[in-house]
Every structure is written in C-alpha cells, then in structure tokens.
C-alpha cells in the first residue's frame, strides 16, 4: 500500500492504493468516479481513457503509482462551471451514443484531438479514435459529433482572434 498525491479533476487528491492497482481502479474504487469504464481491462477497448497531464491514456494500463504528482482528468472533470465541454455538447447534439458504455472514453480521446487538431479530417478523426471501440457500432454519429466539435473549436479560435465570424 502506498499513499498517492495527485490532482484529480482540478482538486488535490490523496489516496492509498496497493502497488498492483491501476489508475482505473483508483479512479473508480477510491475516488468513486465511475464514469471511466472497465471494459476489456487490457488496452483493447479504450473505455477507460482519461487524461494524464493533458494527454489521453488508457487508465487500465497505467499503474496508479505512476500518477503520483500528476494531473488526472476523467470524464467527470471534462465539464466546467460554464457547463458541458464542447465535445460533450456535440455528442449530445448528434445523438452519438447507443448503450453509452464507450462514450466517456470516446469523449476523452476526442477532446485531445479537438484541442490538438481542430482541422482534423474524417480520416484523422478515425485514427484518433482507433483505440476506442463502440460495440453498438455507432461510429457514424460519433464521427459526426467530433467533426462538429472541431468546427466549433475552430469558430471559437477565430472569434477569440477577432477574425470573421
């Protein structure tokens, strides 16, 4: 057992966890945040995707000890005081879910893409979400949601820069 100190969704967190626990186990069973899903539990499905220091990682393949001192964001931390994140809003608007199990991981992976490459093409969106499986196979609306999120992110950037609306 070791004590871990890290930032979880912007707040200081201190949890005790055995050495063999993963980040996913800490998030779900210590912090009680069950948005990150335990799907395959070996890196195939992406349902457990969270951000560590701003990059999406598979929390089922990350030892909890490795997040000591780092910043972790789960789906519960994606929205903020202004409301839903643009990615969440677009998934909602597009109806980009069926059973919903893959959705938290999908949105965390999509968030990184929208931040890093709002100009992403459909092919680049597919590549960015390659690690995330939707067993309902509802990919079309998921891709549409991410395209819309990219479009709104670009618009946001243009407006901030004072450019054409």
């Amino acid at each position, binding site marked *: 057992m070791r004590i871990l100190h890290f930032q979880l969704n912007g707040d200081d967190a201190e949890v005790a966890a055995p050495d063999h626990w993963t980040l996913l186990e800490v998030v779900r069973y210590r912090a009680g945040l069950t948005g990150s899903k335990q799907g395959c539990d070996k890196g195939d499905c*992406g349902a457990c995707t969270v951000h560590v220091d701003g990059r999406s*990682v*598979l929390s089922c393949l990350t030892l909890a000890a490795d997040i000591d001192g780092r910043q972790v964001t789960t789906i519960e931390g994606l929205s903020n005081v202004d409301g839903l994140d643009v990615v969440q809003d677009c998934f909602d608007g597009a109806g980009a879910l069926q059973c919903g199990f893959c959705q938290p991981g999908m949105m965390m992976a999509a968030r990184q893409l929208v931040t890093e490459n709002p100009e992403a093409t459909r092919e680049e969106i597919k590549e960015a979400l390659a690690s995330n499986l939707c067993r309902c196979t509802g990919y079309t609306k998921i891709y549409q949601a991410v395209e819309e999120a990219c479009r709104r992110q670009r618009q946001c950037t243009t407006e901030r820069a004072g450019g054409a609306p």
Partner: protein
Amino acid sequence: MNTFDLQKPTSIEGAAALLPTSSDSRQAVLLAGGQDLLGELKDGLVEPERVVNLKGVAGLDAMNWEADGSLTLGALVTLQSLAEEPRVLEEMAVLAEAAQQVGSPQIRSVGTVGGNLNQRPRCWYYRNADSVCLKKGGTHCFAQLGENKYNAILGGGPTYIVHPSDLAPALVALGASAVLVSPRGRRTVLLSEYYLLPADDGITRETIREPDEVLASVHVPVQRQGMRSTYIKFRERGSYDWALSSVALCLWMSDGMTTGARLVLGGVAPTPWRCESSELLLVGHAVDEQTIRRVVDEALRQAEPLSDNAYKVPLTKGLVTRALQTLAS
C-alpha cells in the same frame, strides 16, 4: 492482477541490481510504459514478486542529437515524442513513420522506445494463459500445426512467433545499436544482433538481453548523405493493430542508380528480418520493374509458410515493391 512489490530505483545501475540473475521472471520484471507488461501481468503470463519501475531514473526520457548528427534515444522516450520530433521526421522518415504507426494515440502517449523493442510476442498460443506452448516451457509450438495465420514465414522453428515491434525493423535498417546495463557493466550491441532466432537459443526469450540487463538507450548513427527512407505497415484492419507484414527501407540513389540500400521486414519472422542479398541486387541498378522483381523474389526466397499464412508471401512482395517505387520516384 496478482500483487507485487513496486520498486522505483533512481539509477540504471540501481534498476539492474534489482533484477534477477537467472531467467526466473518470478523474481522481477522491468516496467517502462507498461503498455505490454500490464497485459502480461493481468493475463498471468508473468507473475513477479517485484516490478522495477524505470520511471524513477532521471533523464531516461531524453532524446539527444549528438554533435556528429547521431541520435541517442533514452529507453523511456515515448513513441509520440519520437513520431513528432522534427529532425527525425526530416532525416529518418523510416523511424518517424514506424513510431506513428504503433498502436493508437493512447498507447503512443505512454509506450516507450525501450518497451516497444522488448515487447513480448502476440502469438495467441503464447498470450493464452491456459496454453503451455514451447515458448512457455511446454513441449510443442502449437502454431506450427495449429492456427498460424499471424505467424512466421521466415526464420521459424522450433517456434514460429513474429516479432511485433514496428521500431525494430526501422532501427535495424538505420544501423542502430542498444546500450545494455547490468551489475557487470555496460555493453553496446547492434540491434541487428540483439534479436534471437528460436533456433539460436531464442525459444523462451526473443533477445540476447540477460535477465539482469536493462536496455538503457538506443543510438542511431549518422546516415550517409542523401538517404531516402520509409516504413510501410500492413494491418488486417484499418484501426490500430500489429503488422501482418511491414517493410523498413532506406535507399541511396545517384543519377538514377541505387548506390546503397537497407531492407528489413517486420511481422514475418521471429526477429526483424534483414534482406542483405536483396540489398546487393539493388546496388548499381535503376529501380525498374525487372530489378524490383528480382529483389522481392530474393527477399522471400527462403519463405516457408505454414498452413494458414502463405498470403504473407505475396503481401510482403507487394509491400517491398511499394516501398521501392515510393522511394525511387
């Protein structure tokens, strides 16, 4: 996952001192990015008493361009940072393209150079916890007579795994070497000599790395002026996957003639598979249809497909052809 004691040494030598002196992996295993190891731990393929976490060693994630233009990659350099490094993209396309095609964004964010080179095979008989195959101390390689669609067509026997690394063929093509550190000191070995064929004592392991050795860094030498290079990976599906077959090619040309070549195949043999005799067929010739045919036939001349993987022969010939045409045009 079974319980283990996680240790985080602060030096490479300290890490090596925590490793077992025999090949008994029940004692200790090395953790870098963990993208392969955690799967092995969860499946019970390794059940160590302690896991030695390299992330406590400062500087192991550094990528250094030396004064002579060569490149040193620490074992913990992530695949993402390698794929994005501007000079790698410009000067060693084969390496950047290989790194870009490993796994998925999540895996590349965390997966490392050292881990990618030392990952264990994907053969389903090896990965199945209930199967005691030859690699796991059993008496038979089940792939030889069983389901072997993904297994080796070159260099197989008595086991038929393929090495799953994308970086390894690219780094062998670039003439890279690895620095190994143990309590006995350090040694530098060419990556082309790092991997072991099953027939050369490579049954339960894939590399010459001793149980108490740590791969600390990889050194990529300066390449001769004018190199063009590419890595082409063929996957069974559009989404992320290991290679069914892949080709790392470095080519030097002058006045339409090839003056040098390095051709290494991935996904078809238990090691990155260098095709030296094919390279010789390129030198002094234009990359025309006739030369390409001779080169691809020579590269696969020794292929001995199993019952379900003969498709890898024409597939690999096609990939080599594509790589040559891409670089020569």
